């Protein structure tokens, strides 16, 4: 594990703690679904069941670490759509994009639907979300998640994200693109020694990410906002893709204002310099947040 991540030794602060964190399984995080339930009521029900809930961040009773919960899928509150198990870093993506009520939103790669449902929650189930997902097999879990959580402001489409029709422009776009998934590499559970396989991004994936970020930006209305995110540490897939956008479009990076611990985006890696604006991007590491490793950049289209 150490060798695999050693190329990032210079960019990941407190590198040994980072490696240690990968040897511990990630906790279960729960998001309370306000579309269907009042957070206070859900917390009370879960605590009565003996589930220990630790609120995460200063955002009120919406995100919790459930330290003594093995699985949430067999809880009646899961079945009723009151809660959704979702990595904390994934929850932060929708929070940072912060789509307004009554606006038009595109989720370019929607499955399995956690971020889409969270955006619907933030929007008060109003406006309209286009949940786009290319792969038919992923429409099954996507539909299951969104209907269980009571998402009623959604239309499902099946386009290649990088070729999504340009006819309509959007107020907000979530571009959580396919990536090498390095941020998900972590010990699976306490008793095992297994880790997910170590991925490597090929040129094809890097090319796809660049096409998607360009198409996402082109689909924005003037004054619109896009969130580009991945669950990987690789600067080529993160700062590199955003730099490609800055080189080809008149885009600007917007600040990310959240209280959850994170590092700024990189402005240099392996002798390659990135635009100074990249410091406004955010990198999330498991030894800081105890969740999936994540990258996000909030991108604006000047109005």
């Amino acid at each position, binding site marked *: 594990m150490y060798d695999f991540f050693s190329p990032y030794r210079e960019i990941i602060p407190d590198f040994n703690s980072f490696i240690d964190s990968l040897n511990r399984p990630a906790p279960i995080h729960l998001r309370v679904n306000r579309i269907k339930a009042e957070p206070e009521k859900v917390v009370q029900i879960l605590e009565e069941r003996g589930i220990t809930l630790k609120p995460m961040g200063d955002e009120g009773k919406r995100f919790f670490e459930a330290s003594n919960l093995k699985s949430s899928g067999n809880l009646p509150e899961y079945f009723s759509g009151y809660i959704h198990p979702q990595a904390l870093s994934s929850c932060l993506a929708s929070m940072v994009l912060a789509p307004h009520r009554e606006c038009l939103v595109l989720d370019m790669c929607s499955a399995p639907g956690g971020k889409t449902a969270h955006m619907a929650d933030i929007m008060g189930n109003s406006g*309209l979300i286009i949940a786009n997902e290319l792969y038919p097999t992923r*429409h099954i879990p996507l539909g299951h998640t969104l209907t269980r959580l009571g998402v009623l402001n959604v239309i499902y489409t099946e386009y290649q994200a990088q070729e999504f029709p340009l006819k309509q422009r959007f107020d907000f776009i979530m571009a959580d693109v396919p990536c090498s998934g390095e941020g998900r590499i972590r010990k699976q559970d306490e008793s095992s020694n297994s880790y997910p396989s170590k991925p490597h991004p090929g040129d094809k994936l890097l090319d796809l990410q660049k096409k998607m970020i360009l198409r996402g930006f082109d689909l924005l209305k003037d004054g619109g906002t896009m969130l580009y995110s991945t669950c990987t540490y690789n600067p080529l897939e993160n700062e590199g893709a955003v730099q490609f956008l800055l080189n080809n479009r008149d885009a600007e990076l917007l600040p990310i204002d959240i209280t959850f611990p994170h590092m700024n985006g990189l402005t240099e890696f392996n002798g390659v310099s990135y635009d100074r604006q990249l410091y406004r991007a955010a990198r999330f590491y498991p030894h800081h947040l105890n969740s999936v490793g994540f990258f996000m950049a909030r991108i604006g289209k000047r109005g």
Partner: protein
Amino acid sequence: MYERFGIKKELFDDYLIFSKKRTFWFLRKSRFISEVSHLKIKRLGIKAFQEVGSFMKPTTRFIQYFGVHATKALLIIDEKQLRQLIDGDFLPFNNELENGYVILFFKGEVLGLGLLIKGMVRSQLALDEVRYLTI
């Protein structure tokens, strides 16, 4: 919905209803819907009803969302009764109500539907989803 469950019609004013064959979907109204009509749409909103024989059967997800507004045809069940339903047993329903669907409430939550026939209620909950519930 009003006749059976007492759910007021006005509650659905904010929604569009789409139908295909014997299935009906609900989508929240939005000024953007006409703007995206050029898109090839795979599905939308949530599946709300299905015509089953002479009944119009609401889906579990639909009733979980709107069932909190119901004022009649309700069955409040405890842990033991929920386990009985999951195990395939019937529960008596002591109320003069016509045969049809009833809403199952468990600890204040709308779980889904039961079917009342001749004074007995059987589960309409998807067995593969509720079989392993930690009650």
